[in-house]
């Protein structure tokens, strides 16, 4: 209990003193999460829409793959991405290994299936009733797309929250492709692992409290957005 008390005080001290190293780590973690989620949404939203709306051979296996991908082990992804960007690897010439770029690639691979699967499932569960309704209301294809996204917005936010959660909590891939280099690729999770390996449990715990605080703040922000957006589809009776 003493250790936790000391760690809590140290965490507060780190935050209050504006510890440069800490804020550098927090900033990189946030930047990493931002880039990852931006790219994931850019790729995952169209893919999820395509899988949710589309009716084509191979759709079910692809959806199954997306569901399987939700549980991809970060260490395995990290290993494959590291091999890809390794100096002698197929993309070695890019010199991305041990850079935030390689970390973003690994994190996108980890979060993409989450967004694709959640968006596709949200659409699939509503399309049978939503599409005829939107057609009957006289929506153009573009209007239908926009209205569908609006109707599934809570599921979208859930996907974003789940993606953020994964990026923030993930350590295996970040460590393998980022290398935990101080000031360059050190994130909150990799910093915690480092402090533990050095036996600095109080500092590791302090960092863990900061990480929890940041995660909580992001979750609260997204939940507030979710509540402000009102209710999603109400199911059987409709989507209202």
């Amino acid at each position, binding site marked *: 209990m003493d250790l936790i008390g000391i760690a809590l005080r140290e965490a507060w001290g780190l935050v209050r003193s504006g510890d440069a190293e800490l804020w550098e780590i927090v900033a990189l973690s946030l930047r990493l999460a931002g880039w990852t989620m931006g790219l994931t949404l850019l790729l995952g939203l169209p893919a999820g829409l395509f899988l949710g709306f589309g009716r084509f051979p191979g759709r079910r296996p692809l959806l199954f793959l997306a569901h399987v991908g939700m549980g991809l082990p970060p260490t395995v992804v990290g290993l494959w991405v590291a091999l890809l960007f390794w100096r002698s690897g197929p993309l070695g010439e890019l010199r991305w290994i041990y850079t935030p770029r390689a970390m973003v690639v690994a994190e996108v691979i980890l979060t993409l299936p989450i967004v694709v699967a959640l968006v596709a499932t949200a659409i699939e569960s509503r399309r*049978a*009733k*939503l599409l*005829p*309704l939107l*057609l*009957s*209301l*006289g*929506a*153009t294809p573009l*209007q239908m797309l926009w*209205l569908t996204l*609006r*109707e599934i917005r809570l599921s979208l936010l859930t996907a974003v929250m789940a993606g953020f959660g994964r990026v923030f909590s993930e350590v295996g891939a970040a460590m393998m492709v980022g290398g935990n280099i101080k000031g360059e690729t050190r994130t909150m999770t990799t910093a915690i692992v480092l402090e533990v390996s050095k036996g600095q449990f109080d500092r590791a715990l302090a960092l863990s409290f900061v990480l929890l605080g940041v995660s909580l703040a992001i979750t609260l922000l997204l939940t507030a957005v979710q509540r402000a957006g*009102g*209710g*999603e*589809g*109400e199911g*059987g*009776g*409709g*989507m*209202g």
Partner: protein
Amino acid sequence: MKADSPVVVAEGVGRAVRGRSILDGIDLVVRAGERWGIVGPNGAGKTTLLHLLALLVPPTAGRLAVFGLPAGGRIPVAVRRRLSVVFQDGRLLSGSVLRNVALPLRLRGVPRREARRRAERWLEAFGLLALAGRRAGSLSGGERARLNLARALAVEPELLLLDEPFAAVDASSRKPLQTLLRSIVEREGTTLVLISHDYRDLLALTDQVLVLAGGRAVDRGPTAALWARSSRVQALFPDGFGSIAKAGGPGPATDAAAGVIDEGDEGGR
């Protein structure tokens, strides 16, 4: 649309899903301003016929034209916008009651303020103006039914397709709602196709009735006269106008015997 010009022309129309027949050999001509009722036991294909007329699903047999446009190919939005549908399950969009009525107007390019004004007028007509700001999902079954009608009518459709619009409306509100709907469709000259499990709805709102059973049209005629002469129709309502037989019913075969998929099944695909 010119009076008496055909709005719907169906010649031998059928619909099958995965090789199973839901509708077969339907002939029907609905002219502008006519008010048709469709009646039949559960699984007779009523909802599927309505979805065909709404250009939501293509026929798999026969020829169907709505507003002169053959169904089955690409349907221009402009044609879809000439008709309105009220679905059996009273589907609503998320957001407020007002949004639900204003949205189809906004989709048609009506400016926001004008759409709001028109939506409020329709909500007032259906006694929902006080609920305009409420979340649509929080409405009762009866309020939901009125909202669906208000939304369908707000775009002033030439063809109005209603699938059990009064199913959730209590007995005391049913008659005033029928009267209101009748006065609107008469005033606007709206062509109406109404499915109901209550023959009183058909008597109040329609002039012609098509009877379906086992996916086929088994009888048709003027609404009141059909009730008087058709043992099929009377058999559908053994306990009076408002209580349709739950299973079987008239016709050459029951739905189960004919291997007919319940029309609700198709909607889930």
